[in-house]
């Protein structure tokens, strides 16, 4: 039996077993490859998406357990129309290999939605589940502060 999902505002009917994690529904079935596979055990944050605005590790949410509308990095902004947070990431030249950055941005976007002016300690707390093997953390931190100030002005 197909499962109904709403992803980035678009309804989808998914014909996969109930226990398939949302990550693999997005990547292999829907074709939204911006959400990345890194560990499969919620230890790296590369697969972070929003469900009803909350940042979750999509590798740990079974298809049948998805409780609300899903937003992925593709739903945040596009190359032609970057969201504020993506523009801050680009302005600060954050990405190196870039593989973890979809997850970093989704995590940071959820943080900023909840806390429009996070301190360094609050950034540490919110972002420590997101691993970056290139070590781009100083620029991620700068981009979050930058996005916070731009969103405040807006």
């Amino acid at each position, binding site marked *: 039996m197909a499962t109904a999902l709403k992803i980035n505002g678009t309804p989808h009917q998914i014909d996969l077993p109930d226990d398939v994690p949302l990550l693999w529904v997005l990547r292999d079935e829907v074709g939204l490859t911006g959400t990345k596979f890194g560990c499969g055990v919620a230890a790296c944050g590369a697969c972070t998406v929003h469900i009803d605005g909350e940042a979750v590790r999509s590798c740990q949410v079974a298809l049948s357990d998805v409780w609300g509308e899903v937003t992925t990095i593709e739903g945040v902004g596009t190359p032609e129309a970057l969201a504020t947070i993506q523009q801050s990431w680009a302005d600060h030249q954050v990405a190196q290999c870039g593989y973890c950055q979809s997850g970093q941005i989704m995590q940071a976007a959820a943080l900023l939605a909840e806390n429009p002016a996070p301190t360094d300690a609050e950034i540490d707390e919110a*972002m420590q589940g997101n691993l970056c093997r290139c070590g*781009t953390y100083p620029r991620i931190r700068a981009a979050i502060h930058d996005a916070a100030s731009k969103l405040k002005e807006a």
Partner: protein
Amino acid sequence: MASVGKIIRRTFLIGSAAIVGGVAFGAYYVTRPAPNPLKPKEGEAALNPFVLIDQNGITLFAPRAEMGQGVKTTWAALIAEELDVDLDQITVLHGPAAAAYYNSAMMGEGLPNKGYDISDFQHNLGEALGILGKALSLQVTGGSTSMKDGFERMRQAGASARETLKRAAADRLGIDPSDLKTASGHVITPNGDKIAYTDLAVEAAGLEPVEVPLRDPSEWRYLGRIQPRLDMVGKVTGTAEFGIDVRLPGMRFAAVRMNPKLGGAMNSFDDSAAKSMPGVETVVDLGTGVAVIANNTWLANQAVEAVEIDWGDAPYPPETDGIFLKIVEAFDGAPNSTMRDDGDVSVTPDGATEITAEYQVPYLAHATMEPMNATALYNGDALELWCGNQAPTLIRFRAANTANLDTEAVQIHTTYLGGGFGRRGELDFGEIATKVAMAMPGTPVQTTWSREEDMRHDYFRPGAIARMRGAVQDGKAVLIDGKVAAQSCMQQAVERYTGFPGGGPDKVLVEGFFNQPYAVPNYRMSGHVADLAVPVGFWRSVGNSHNGFFHETFMDELAHAAGRDPLDFRLELMRTEHAPSAGCLEAVREMSNWTGKTPDGVGRGVAFTYSFGTPVAQVIEVVDEDGAIRIHKVWIACDMGLALDPENVKAQMFGGMMYGLSAACFGAITFADGEVEQFNFPDYDALRMHTAPQVEVRVLETNRHMGGAGEPGTPPSMPALGNALFDLTGNRARSLPLVNQFNLLV
């Protein structure tokens, strides 16, 4: 010298070729150009384009792996600087696996000199040796060589294309080319009219490429300045395509399990349970492992985990202790190399104080964020392979052998790399994906490794031991006698890539050990090769990654024994030996306000490594926060000579440093029953947002020869941290990872 010059010129012959509606400029691999170089006949040379212009626009080729180091942007800037095009008006592609994209700087690194003492003659010889890179078709991204390699050739390609386009415009207008200017992809006539390059492409294709001198650096608009990275927008919108993101019509997804007793056989397997699991299409016997092809990666992985497999034993001691005993044994034999032997180390000078120390570091995994994967489409007489890789010509050769095809029948598509660090220079992921796809001809199959499979089937940074003896007198080091023992990743890799056994003195094993710019009168450094079959390979900065720790921790111990400030102690030995190196130490002293003294609860350490032609000094400050130690701040100074994009160099420097600190704090691959004991990030963690230090980087440009950027930030980070911890706690770190000895913030 003339003959050397001649050889160098012959290795890159700029040519051009007509294409449909346009022109291509590029380099030839051999010296006999073909009438149609884009479709050469037998015995004729193919032209591999670096610049392609047609009605659709201007395309530049940057045939180096973009694994985060920004090579795509800086490589394109080298061409654009001479071609006079705007970086936002062009397309940059990686291009196919091709011989003419060989890496000329890589082989130059093989010269038996220390690097920092290189003469101009040797420097030219190094370039000439680049021919070997060409002969082996070594299209490799590694060794921090991309900018050294591309610096001359790419500007030459751009200049030649520009002048040929001008000649085409001059012919059309019946005027002299010297009356024409170029800007933003246009030729500009004396009266200010603009003719687009795209409009001149067909006419330019009929002309001999024009050779001109390169522009003086004072005229540069892109090089030496900060460029927005061309891959940035794709990477912040999830639209940049990594290997794992390749999607093709009708594609299937596979998961794989290879013998966790690395190099052991597969005795038998039972796939009866796996075959009937949801989504499964077929189970593939890979000989040394199994794969499951399904309609979803996760379902394939569930099924491959359900295969019952009887694995054969590994060809090395099954426990970590037994492996390190073999490394210890290597000290008993004759050294594989003694690349530094100054003065006489057999006698400790009268009145000098002698100290000895032994250090040990573990095996390490690369742990790229994107697990190993590749996508293959096999149809019986041809193969296409999509993957992020650091060596497309080698992977093409391996895939062709695997599929029993000519290399010409194999096409490699190189995507972005979700981290490389040396891991994606290996060929295993491409070979396995090829075998899997051969089980389903006509259907593209993506084979993705689980994180556990990736972590436990690496070509690891070898575990290593160093035995150091030294002496100080009157506040100075007067003797250093060092021995390092480890497996040779070079010898093992040569055999793996070519099938021939590797041998001879291994410079990589002792890099960062024998070639450090200290004027110590009695100075001998030897390498001993451990005979072990644990798979080992090139891990960001390779031999420097262990030797930096050994050498610089011992320098700190010597300074302490001499009663000297560790920064002054180094600086004094370095000033007369290599000024750019001394400049880096002086820079971090100034940046960090180094006084040699720290308040209670704060510790500072300094370290220095010269690697890949670039000296790097780092000062690290650690702080005791209620018993847990935080790495608070790092100051880095490097001198790579010309920095083509200083902001990108800074990113590479602190990124390399973070990679080293992650290993220094937490990294260890250990073995039990022949199997790696670490499975996933919880067992092999890295620095995270809350444990990463603040950083400040200064890029100096006094070095006479161009150095690398991607790796030199890594080696000094580990000893700098160990030395800072000694300053804070009085406990000397002689083995890694540090979390085993110190209460680090986690």
